[in-house]
């Protein structure tokens, strides 16, 4: 007798999932299908007519040495960002785990960089390393090193890596700290009784037990370096000098919105999409299996 005549029992669940479906449709399915569609089109410079060209955009892309160099840059960049931010975060987390007083303050301070917008983070680093005005480049010149990331490709790369890694340290730190705190204290004590000092305990016991966290963070960091560092690169180097920091995601923007090659840019985003799908599958498939002890 609980039948609701005015409000059929099947409507409410649909209403409840509606916002999620709308968000997914508007912000993911629609743009993604647009990218797929655009990637097989070539548009004339004035936007008057478009031509369906099958996979010509992709063919051109794979024959373009600049695209392959951007690929290489992205791989180097991602590896450096992931390695730098994870190792630094791990070090900080190991220290934080041993802190007895002022834990809250210490942790809060370490988490702050995560709240800084990518462009702002980039701007901060640009100011510090500005070849004529920056405090760090001033200090470096006092040491006899002439820093100029506007001219040197490797220095530009170093700068975007540092800025991107700095922003990600907070996130990695949180996960590493949580991972460390979930290791039972008695294991560490057992190792102490077995005669392992702090360094040895870290290598033999703590790091292996952290491996699930480490693998998870590795995937997250690579995805971050691939896709979410656009703001940093845009603010710091704008892909330059001479394309030295032109990562795949920056190239999508540059070719599409600056170069106005919409078809080629869409083809690049499709490739990026395939990469991120691959990474996600890898994460879901192997995170349980490979790294569990």
């Amino acid at each position, binding site marked *: 007798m609980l039948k609701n005549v005015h409000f059929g029992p099947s409507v409410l669940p649909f209403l409840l999932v509606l916002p999620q479906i709308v968000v997914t449709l508007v912000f993911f399915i629609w743009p993604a299908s647009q990218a797929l569609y655009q990637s097989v089109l070539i548009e004339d410079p004035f936007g008057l007519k478009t031509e369906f060209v099958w996979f010509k955009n992709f063919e051109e892309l794979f024959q373009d040495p600049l695209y392959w160099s951007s690929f290489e840059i992205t791989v180097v960049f991602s590896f450096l960002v992931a390695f730098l931010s994870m190792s630094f975060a791990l070090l900080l987390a190991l220290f934080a785990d041993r802190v007895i007083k002022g834990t809250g303050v210490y942790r809060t301070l370490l988490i702050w960089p995560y709240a800084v917008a990518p462009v702002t983070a980039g701007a901060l680093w640009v100011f510090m390393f500005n070849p004529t005005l920056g405090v760090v480049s001033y200090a470096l010149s006092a040491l006899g090193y002439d820093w100029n990331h506007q001219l040197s490709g490797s220095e530009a790369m170093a700068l975007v890596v540092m800025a991107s890694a700095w922003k990600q340290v907070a996130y990695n730190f949180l996960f590493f700290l949580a991972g460390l705190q979930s290791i*039972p204290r*008695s294991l560490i*004590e057992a190792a102490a*009784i077995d005669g392992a000092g702090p360094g040895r305990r870290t290598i033999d016991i703590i790091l292996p037990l952290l491996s699930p966290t480490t693998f998870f963070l590795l995937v997250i960091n690579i995805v971050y370096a691939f896709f979410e560092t656009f703001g940093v690169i845009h603010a710091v180097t704008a892909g330059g000098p001479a394309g030295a920091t032109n990562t795949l995601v920056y190239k999508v923007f540059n070719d599409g919105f600056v170069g106005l090659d919409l078809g080629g840019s869409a083809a690049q985003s499709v490739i990026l999409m395939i990469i991120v799908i691959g990474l996600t599958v890898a994460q879901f498939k192997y995170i349980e299996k490979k790294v569990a*002890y």
Partner: protein
Amino acid sequence: MARVILEGLRKTYPNGFKAIHGVDVTIEEGEFLVLVGPSGCGKSTLLRMIAGLESITEGQLRIGDRVVNNLEPSERDIAMVFQNYALYPHMSVYKNMAYGLKIMGLPKSEIEERVKKAAAILELTDEQLTRKPRQLSGGQRQRVAMGRAIVREPSVFLFDEPLSNLDAKLRVQMRLEIKSLQANLGITSIYVTHDQVEAMTLGQRLMVLNAGNVEQLGTPIELYQKPASLFVAGFIGSPAMNFAEAKIDETGENITISGQAALPLGNGGMPEYSNKNVILGVRPEHLELVADDPDAVPMTVAMVEQLGADTLVHGHFGESRSNLTVRLDGIRNVKSGEVLAIRVTPDHLHIFDPDSERRLEGN
């Protein structure tokens, strides 16, 4: 093997909480000492102080001839078995046992020899040695944890409630194994438990701790027969001892419970405590049913528990509200509401001072 000497050991935490209020004991070579008490009594803290996992605030700790207060755990020549076993989950059983030896820098052949020997003692098969801890049952993990302690060939074994994660049946079995293992190896052992049955069966001596104080130190039978305080009397023995407020009469020869039943104290009484209010304790197993006895007290039965081997009768003294439990052998046909005549022999009366809660003894 070594003697362990605790002299005035105290522990105060940085927040001012005093966990241990001064413990003095000498644990002889090869002795099995059990630290027992309710949770929060400081028994684990004391064990961890001996292990070197907690600092010692005051007092001196000697293992063998050395004062070890400021030595690292690994330098104290001890091995510890943890409550949750603390096996390294990413290492095989073999590596778990070999880890400490590897750090000691022993040659591979000797490590293998020691691990194989310990595995044989603990009846761990070669196949089990290659497994990871999570592939073992609780009892097997327990054995590996002990194996890891044995291979170190320490002077002292420390056990921190090693059986509390096992089911009841396995606990009884492992209890016997630990006891025979300790007897065979002859290594001084300190064992922490909150389970008084485990304490009674394992320990050559028991130390009962309560709120950081030593309530009593003695053999299991001493603690059972002459508990030094109300706390020990209530803690040791199952079901727990019966207590009742009572008064010793003017002559000091009899004791009255709630102004009703009078029991003779025997053995010349306690004239020095005449007219004193006391707490009387009697163990459930020292009460017996009698048919016709002038010294018998009446007991009104409230509830009966049939355990097969014996029968527990719960009720109260006469008309009073003092609870009373009686343990009778075998299966008895007792019903609630019945009034039984109960007798206790003077030898089995325990008398405590209600203020100091210590045991009072006649001459």
